[in-house]
């Protein structure tokens, strides 16, 4: 059993790396269609872009060589966080998998900010600072939202939640709303791509990266997006699995299908909105998070 679990965890990591750039092309294609453009010619376009970047020489700006470590840390943390996800089989980590997920997704965000700060470019520092403000608000809500989702299924474990405990639909809906907003924000899409903000900050966090380093930077951004989409997908998948009994491989496929759907919904939202300003974004988010959190925990506490 733990072998299947390990296999599925590894499979999800492999799929994430392979599919995230393809989903990014889907994103670009969809955006192009909404812009009345043709868009990239093939679904592999982002892969081609990454391959091209990987073929260039490595250029490191002086005082910016420290970016390499946090860059790889971002990728590694995002992948580790993903490994806690596959539902359908109780994780050997359960009931610690929730903690594990929170820890590594936070690590992914933190090291991404570290990329910005260590690159020594003022634009990147401003981008990193914005990212920091946003992430600090968002991570708190993320932890609360994730926990609330797990609690509304009766067990403080994410992968195990499909099996045990009793499912409480009303708190579940509220806490899912909270969680899905957090996850949209952490996917760093418009209106919350404040750290990048290309026309304002000339490319923010990633500004000092080029060639293979930029390729890794792009992969790390895409993996973070994949992580956000698949946590959302996992949260949707939980009750479904419980009712239709999709375990094992079928649960895995359900998770993937939902991840793709969530990704597309995310792209649709991002294509239709403009970029927010950091203080406005934070205010808006706080005014959404506080009532949703209060509501979710009140419902949980009073056993609705």
């Amino acid at each position, binding site marked *: 059993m733990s072998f299947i679990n390990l296999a599925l965890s590894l499979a999800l990591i492999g799929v994430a790396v392979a599919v995230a750039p393809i989903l990014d092309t889907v994103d670009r294609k969809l955006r192009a269609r909404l*812009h009345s453009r043709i868009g990239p010619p093939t679904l592999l376009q982002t892969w081609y872009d990454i391959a091209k970047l990987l073929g260039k020489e490595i250029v490191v*700006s002086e005082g910016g060589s420290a970016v390499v470590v946090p860059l790889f840390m971002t990728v590694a943390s995002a992948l580790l966080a993903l490994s806690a996800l596959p539902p359908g089989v109780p994780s050997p980590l359960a009931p610690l998998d929730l903690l594990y997920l929170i820890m590594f997704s936070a690590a992914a965000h933190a090291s991404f900010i570290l990329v910005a700060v260590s690159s020594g*470019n*003022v634009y990147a520092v401003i981008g990193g600072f914005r990212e920091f403000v946003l992430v600090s608000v968002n991570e708190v809500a993320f932890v609360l939202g994730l926990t609330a989702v797990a609690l509304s299924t009766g067990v403080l474990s994410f992968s195990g939640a499909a099996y045990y405990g009793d499912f409480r639909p009303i708190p579940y809906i509220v806490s899912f709303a909270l969680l899905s907003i957090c996850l949209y924000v952490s996917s760093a899409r418009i209106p919350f791509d404040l750290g990048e903000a*290309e026309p304002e900050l000339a490319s923010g966090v990633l500004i000092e990266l080029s060639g293979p380093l930029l390729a890794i930077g792009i992969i790390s951004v895409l993996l973070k997006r994949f992580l956000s989409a698949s946590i959302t997908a996992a949260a949707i998948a939980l009750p479904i699995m419980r009712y239709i009994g999709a375990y094992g491989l079928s649960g895995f496929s359900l998770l993937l299908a939902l991840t793709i759907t969530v990704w597309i919904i995310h792209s649709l939202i991002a*294509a239709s*909105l*403009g970029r927010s*300003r950091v203080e*406005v974004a934070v205010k808006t988010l706080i005014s959404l998070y506080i009532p949703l959190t209060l509501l979710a925990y009140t419902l949980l506490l009073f056993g609705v």
Partner: protein
Amino acid sequence: MNQHKDLLPQRLRPLESLIQEWRWIDKGRAVMLDVKRDKLVEVARILYKEIGAFFKTCAGVDERPLWGGFAVYHIFGIDEEGLDVVIYVKIPEKDHPWVPSIVREVPAADWCELEFRDMLGIDPRGRLTQRLVLPDDWPEDVKPLRKDVPYGYRPPRAEESRPVEAGMYPSGVPVGPYHPALHEPEYFELYVEGEEVVDVRYRGFHVHRGIEKLAESPRFDYNKVTFLAERICGICGFVHSCAYVMAVERAGKVEVPERAEYIRALLLEVERLHSHLLWLGVAAHLLGYDAGFMHAWRVREKTMILAEYLTGSRKTYGMNLVGGVRKDITPEKVPKILRVLEEVAEGTKKVADMIVSVPQVRKRLEGTGVLRRGDAAALSVVGPVARASGLNRDIRKDYPYLAYKDVSFMVPVYSEGDNLSRTLVRVEEVFESVEIIKQLLDRMPPGDILNEEWDIEPGKYAVTSVEAPRGEDTHFLITGVGRPYRWRVRAPTYANIPALRPMLRGQELADAPITIASIDPCFSCTDRMLVIDVRTGKRSVLVTRPKVRVVSLG
């Protein structure tokens, strides 16, 4: 102008005792006042503050080949009368010429005074001076616009670069000077505290091309300068070529067929459509709303194809000559023009509606980059920037030229002075332009389009103002033999950039790009920003690129 031809216009009466002589120039559209140097400041003050004239520009001229000295022309406009007032100051010194500075009375004269100081060595006395136009390594004793400097002169290359002193703040970390989102080198230093902009310094003229000097060179003649003029700007090229040919035509009393004037006005409006839609798209892009960007440019593409259909060039280039235009608008073309206009009007309506419905876009346009009416008037700002700050200024109405006297249209004016007002002014102008083009097509008289029989007398003056999409474009011309003796161009952005300082102070850094863009600064030329964090107190000065280490992957 209903004044008696021999009398000084009513509004200028208070100046009568201060001026030496006066005369009508430019076919009776402007008055030239000869003023002695010691009376200049007083005359400027009365004109600007008491009579309420707007300052347009000033021009220094090397008139040594004519009478042995230099001269400065200060050009004002009285909007209500549609009257330009040119103050002519003679400077007898051959070496070290000077004039009193009027900048204390007329803040808008700041840049052009520095410009004649750089270009002609005429010293504006009584003010702080620094180099504005010339690069730092340009030799001190070469004043490029003087007639004895050959037009092809190239100074020796500077051996080493000097750091630029970084403004009035003691500390900062400079970044830049690159900004890939908007193109062309201008350079804004934004002093920030956290994310709040506390001050702004502008450093520009990196791409000064010496066009005014080139036009005086033997390489050019009256007709060829037209093609040079349209290359001043990549967006409002036709505005510049129109302003130039109109100046030559008025100064040289060249008859222009009425049909040509209609065609010119029509193309000016096509250009406005194009420019405003381009701006709308870029504004959306700056606010992160790329869907708005793409759709605005989709509509704009129709206007570019229309421009190509009417002129042969997507950018309305190559249409004007002194005496008329080169390509007629034949009756077969009219239905297609009308169809495109319908599409543009409908498309703009939908796209603009879509853009302002996005909450983030609205939130970031409303109340940001505010320019109060008082500041706007003091700086003599022009175009949509002035109209969004409650100043009802539109050259098409105030100084009717070409066929604008024959069409009716509205001038949208807003009083808020924020980025949203500037956006709305431009969107509304798109619809007005569509209506203007329809009226022009409807009323276009038959006849010739080009008069090639002309002869231009030297030593005549003209001041022309054309309402470019981004504001008033003023050209001042003194005719010479075979080509202009002096041709002075003041593009609208020149008047609007100083207004960015009051607009940006106290802004969020995030809103700085859209605010800078909101004046539609000859658009490609928006910003190079320098961000200096006042709090961190770290400093390392300037523009040397960080050294890079290249590791080859083999």
